C-alpha cells in the first residue's frame, strides 16, 4: 500500500520541472448551469434538489472511456454486473433510474438494465445526476433519480483526434469537432472501441467479458433562423458486435460454443425553439429511438439459441418556460409517447406490442426572498396498457447565510411495468419446462391450457392477477451544504425512499407435470435509506482532494414483517434451524452498507496533471444459502474491497497531449462476484488537437 503512495508522490515531482503558476479552477460546486433538475436552465446555487455534476475535465483526467467508468467513481452510485453494466442509485436497482442524452431517454433494457457501456464519453460536456424521485418532470423510470448526459457545446472545438491502447488489446479511437458561427452550430463525434475481452474464470462458460467491436457516431446541427428562433437536429448511433467463442472443459471433454450478438441503438431528434420575449420561450421536440438486439448462438449442448429484442420509442413534446416576474417562474408542457416492442420471448416475435402515453406537467418556482426558493411540480401520465400515474414533487432551498444551505425535497416517482411483465410468453424447455407469462397473457394462455387439460393446479395468486399498476416510491431528501471558504465544500444528505407496488414474479400455478407457472403481481414493498457525505478541499493551487461516503440500509417490508412475526428461520453453525432475528437481516441483496471514494488531483503549471483515486465497497449479500427466502448474516457474501487507480497526463503546446493510466493497481479480482472487473489494466492515450491559428 505504502509503495503506491510513493509512486503517486514521486511521478509528478519528477515530471514537474517547470513550476509556473496557473490559476486552475477547482472542481468545486462552482456556479455552473444545471438543466436537468428543473427542466430549464438554473444556476447550481439555486437548485432545490440534490445534484451532482461531473464535468468533461474530470472524465478526461480519470481516463474514462465509457459511462460506466466514471459513474462508479461518483458518490451514491454503484455499478451492477448482470445483463450489462447498470447503475444503482442510493440502493435502488438500475430499472429505477432514467438515463437521458441531452434530455432524451435511452431505451433498450435487458431485465431492466440499460447497459451503460453503450455510451462513449469522448464528446461529453458534462453529466448531471439528480437524486430523488423526478417523475414530476420526467415520468416513468425517474424513481431513484435522473442521469442526464449533455453533449451540446456552444463553443468551437478544433478537430480533436485521439487514440488509446490498453490491456486486453483494448483500442479506442475518437474524433470530435465543433464549429460555432453566429447562425450555425455543428458538432460531430466518431468513436471506435474494441477489446479482445477477458476471462478471469477460464473454465466456465459464463461470466466473462467477451470480445466487442463498437462504433459510435453522433452528429448535431443547430441553425439560428433568427435571433429568437432556432432549429436543431441530432442523430446518434451505437452499433456493437459481440463474439463469443468459448471452449468449455468438462470431465476431459472440450466443447466449443459460438455466439454472435449484434446490438444497435440509434436515436434522432428534431426540435424547434422560439423565444417570444425575455420572459417567455417555447420548444417543440420530436424524438425517435430504436434499440435492436439480436443473439444467435450455438449452446453447449449443440442446440441453437436465438433471441431478439426490438424496442421503438417515439415522442412529441412541447414545453413552455414563462418567467412571470422576478419571483415566479413557471414551466408547463405536454407530450405523447408511442412505444412498441417485438421480442422472440413474446408469443409471436412478428407482433409488435405497443403502449401509448399522453402526459402533461407543470412546475412553479417561487422565490419569495433571495434566501428562499420553493419549487412545486406535478405530472400526469395516462397510459394505454397499464394504470395511470400521478407524480407530485415539492422542494425547497433555504440559504441560511453565504456559507450554509439547507435543501428539502419530497417527491413521488414511478416506474411503468415493463413490456415483458405484460407480454412475456416464455417457456424454458431446457430447465424443467417452467413458464413465465406476462399479465396480459397469463389469463388467456392459462385458460387455453386448462381446456387442454395441461394445468395441474392454480394458486390463489392466479386469481389475483390484474392490470399491473406502476411501481411507485416516495422519496425524501434532506441536505445541508456548507462552504466555509471558496476552497472548501462539505455536504451531508439524508435520504429515504419508500417503494410500493413492486412488481414481482410469483408462482401462479403448475402444469400437470409439476412444472411451475409464473406471472407478475404488484406485491412488494421495500425501502432504502441512508446518509451521503461529500467533502472537497483545494489544498493549494496544485492539489485538491475530494471524498465521498454513503451509508445505506435497505429492506423488504414484507420480509421484515415476517421476521417480526417469528415466521422466518435460519440455521446456526451446526446446521440446526433457529428463528431469525431482525439483527440478522441484511436487507436487499447486492447492496453495500458502506461505500466510499477518495480522489487526489494534482495540477502543474505546464499542463501536467496526475490523480490518484481510491474506491471502497463493503461486503454485499450475493447468495441465499441457508434455506430461507431472506438475506441474512448466515448467507453468502462477496468480500468488500478497495481498488486503486491512477492516471498521469500532460499537454504540449504543439497540440499533442498524452495520458497514461493504471487501473486496479492492487490487481483485485473476484471472478464469481465481480466478473466484469479485470485485474490490473494499463492504458496510454495520445491526443492531437488542431491548433487554431
Amino acid at each position, binding site marked *: 500500500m505504502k509503495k503506491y503512495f510513493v509512486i503517486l508522490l514521486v511521478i509528478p515531482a519528477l515530471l514537474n520541472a517547470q513550476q509556473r503558476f496557473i490559476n486552475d479552477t477547482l472542481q468545486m460546486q462552482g456556479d455552473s448551469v444545471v438543466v436537468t433538475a428543473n427542466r430549464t436552465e438554473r444556476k447550481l446555487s439555486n437548485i432545490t434538489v440534490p445534484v451532482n455534476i461531473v464535468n468533461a475535465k474530470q472524465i478526461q483526467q480519470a481516463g474514462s472511456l465509457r459511462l460506466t467508468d466514471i459513474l462508479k467513481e461518483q458518490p451514491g452510485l454503484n455499478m451492477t454486473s448482470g445483463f450489462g453494466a447498470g447503475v444503482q442509485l442510493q440502493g435502488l436497482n438500475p430499472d429505477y433510474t432514467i438515463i437521458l442524452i441531452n434530455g432524451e431517454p435511452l431505451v433498450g433494457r435487458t431485465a431492466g438494465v440499460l447497459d451503460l457501456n453503450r455510451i462513449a464519453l469522448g464528446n461529453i460536456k458534462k453529466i448531471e445526476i439528480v437524486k430523488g424521485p423526478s417523475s414530476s418532470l420526467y415520468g416513468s423510470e425517474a424513481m431513484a433519480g435522473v442521469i442526464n448526459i449533455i453533449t451540446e457545446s456552444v463553443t468551437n472545438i478544433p478537430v480533436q483526434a485521439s487514440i488509446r491502447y490498453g490491456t486486453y488489446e483494448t483500442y479506442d479511437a475518437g474524433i470530435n469537432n465543433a464549429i460555432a458561427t453566429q447562425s450555425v452550430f455543428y458538432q460531430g463525434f466518431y468513436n471506435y472501441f474494441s477489446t479482445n475481452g477477458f476471462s478471469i474464470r477460464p473454465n466456465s462458460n459464463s461470466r466473462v467479458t467477451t470480445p466487442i467491436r463498437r462504433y459510435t457516431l453522433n452528429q448535431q446541427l443547430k441553425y439560428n433562423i433568427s435571433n429568437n428562433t432556432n432549429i436543431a437536429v441530432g442523430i446518434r448511433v451505437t452499433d456493437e458486435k459481440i463474439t463469443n467463442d468459448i471452449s468449455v472443459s*468438462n470431465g476431459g471433454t472440450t466443447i466449443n460454443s459460438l455466439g454472435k450478438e449484434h446490438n444497435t441503438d440509434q436515436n434522432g431528434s428534431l426540435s424547434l425553439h422560439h423565444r417570444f420575449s425575455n420572459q417567455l420561450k417555447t420548444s417543440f421536440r420530436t424524438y425517435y429511438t430504436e434499440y435492436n438486439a439480436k443473439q444467435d448462438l450455438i449452446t453447449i449442448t449443440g442446440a441453437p439459441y436465438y433471441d431478439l429484442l426490438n424496442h421503438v420509442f417515439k415522442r412529441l413534446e412541447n414545453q413552455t418556460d414563462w418567467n412571470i416576474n422576478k419571483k415566479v417562474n413557471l414551466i408547463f408542457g405536454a407530450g405523447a409517447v408511442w412505444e412498441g416492442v417485438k421480442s422472440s420471448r413474446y408469443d409471436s416475435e412478428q407482433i409488435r406490442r405497443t403502449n401509448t402515453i399522453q402526459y402533461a406537467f407543470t412546475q412553479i418556482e417561487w422565490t419569495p426572498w433571495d434566501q428562499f426558493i420553493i419549487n412545486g411540480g406535478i405530472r400526469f401520465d395516462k397510459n394505454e396498457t397499464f394504470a395511470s400515474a400521478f407524480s407530485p414533487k415539492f422542494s425547497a432551498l433555504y440559504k441560511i447565510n453565504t456559507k450554509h444551505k439547507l435543501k428539502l425535497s419530497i417527491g413521488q416517482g414511478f416506474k411503468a411495468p415493463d413490456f415483458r411483465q405484460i407480454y412475456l410468453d416464455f417457456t424454458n424447455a431446457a430447465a424443467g419446462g417452467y413458464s413465465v407469462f406476462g399479465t396480459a397473457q397469463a389469463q388467456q394462455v392459462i385458460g387455453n391450457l386448462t381446456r387442454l387439460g395441461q394445468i395441474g393446479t392454480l394458486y390463489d395468486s392466479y386469481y389475483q392477477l390484474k392490470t399491473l399498476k406502476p411501481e411507485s416510491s416516495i422519496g425524501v431528501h434532506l441536505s445541508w451544504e456548507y462552504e466555509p471558504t471558496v476552497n472548501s465544500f462539505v455536504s451531508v444528505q439524508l435520504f429515504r425512499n419508500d417503494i410500493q407496488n413492486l412488481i414481482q414474479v410469483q408462482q401462479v400455478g403448475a402444469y400437470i407435470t409439476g412444472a411451475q407457472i409464473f406471472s407478475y403481481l404488484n406485491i412488494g414493498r421495500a425501502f432504502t435509506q441512508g446518509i451521503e457525505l461529500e467533502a472537497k478541499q483545494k489544498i493549494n493551487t496544485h492539489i485538491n482532494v475530494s471524498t465521498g461516503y454513503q451509508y445505506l440500509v435497505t429492506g423488504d417490508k414484507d420480509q421484515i414483517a415476517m421476521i417480526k412475526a417469528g415466521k422466518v*428461520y435460519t440455521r446456526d453453525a451446526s446446521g440446526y*434451524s433457529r428463528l431469525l432475528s431482525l439483527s440478522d437481516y441484511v436487507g436487499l441483496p447486492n447492496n453495500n452498507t458502506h461505500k466510499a471514494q477518495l480522489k487526489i488531483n494534482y495540477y502543474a503549471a505546464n499542463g501536467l496533471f496526475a490523480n490518484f483515486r481510491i474506491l471502497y465497497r463493503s461486503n454485499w449479500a450475493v447468495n441465499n*444459502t441457508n434455506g430461507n427466502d431472506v438475506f441474512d448474516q448466515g448467507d453468502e457474501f462477496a468480500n468488500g474491497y478497495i481498488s486503486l487507480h491512477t492516471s498521469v497526463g500532460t499537454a504540449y503546446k504543439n497540440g499533442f497531449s498524452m495520458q497514461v493510466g493504471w487501473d486496479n493497481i492492487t490487481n483485485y479480482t473476484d471472478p464469481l462476484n465481480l466478473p466484469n472487473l479485470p485485474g490490473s489494466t494499463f492504458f496510454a492515450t495520445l491526443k492531437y488537437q488542431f491548433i487554431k491559428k
Partner: protein
Amino acid sequence: MKKTVQSIALLVIILTSIIACTKSDSPTVLPITAITVRDIPADTVVGLSAQGAPITKGVYTFYSLEKNVIVPNTDSASTKWDIAFMATRIIINGGSSGTGQGGAFVYTGLFDDLKTIPTDSVFKTDNAPTSYAITAGSGKGWYTYDGLNNLITPLAGRVLVIRTASGKYVKMEITSYYKGGATLPASASDMEKLTKQRYYSFRFAYQPNGTKTF
C-alpha cells in the same frame, strides 16, 4: 330418575377420563434424545458420461429410523425400513411406496419446539408418481434449489414428522444435502458440486412408545 342417570353418566365420564389420564401419564417417559446422522448417500454420482453428464445408479437408500441403520435394498419390500432417499426425492414406507404403515408431513417450526404432534395433523402417504408424503420440488417440501449456483439447500425451520413402518412417530430435521454436512459455497467447482451432492445429514428423535410426544 333422569337426574340420577345423568349423574352416573357424568361420574363415569369423569372416572374414565381420570383413569385414562393416569394410564397415559404413569409410565415414566425417558426424555428422547435426538440422534445425529451424517452423510447418508442418496444415489450419489458414480461417474461422468463422455459428454460430462453425471452417472448414477438410480437406486434409493433405505433407512430404518427405529434401528438407526441403512437397510439393504434387498429388504425394500419389507417393513424393515421407514424412509428412503434418492437424490432430492424422499419416500416413506407406506402408500404406494411400501407395505408399512408409514406416512408423513412437513411441519413449519423448530425441531426443539415440536414437543407433541398436533392432534389435527394429517399424515399423508406416498401416491407415486403424482404426490408424495414429503412433497417434491424446490420450495415446496424440504429443500430449495438455487439454479444460478446449482445448489440444493434444506429449508430452514422445517421438521419432517414421520410415522414409521410400524406406526411409531419420528420428528426429523434435514441439515444438509452435501458430503461434510454443510451446503457448499457458490464458489465451489462444478465437479465438487456434482460429486459431493446427494449426501443427507439430519437429526431425528424416535418415540418408541407409540405416542405423539417427544
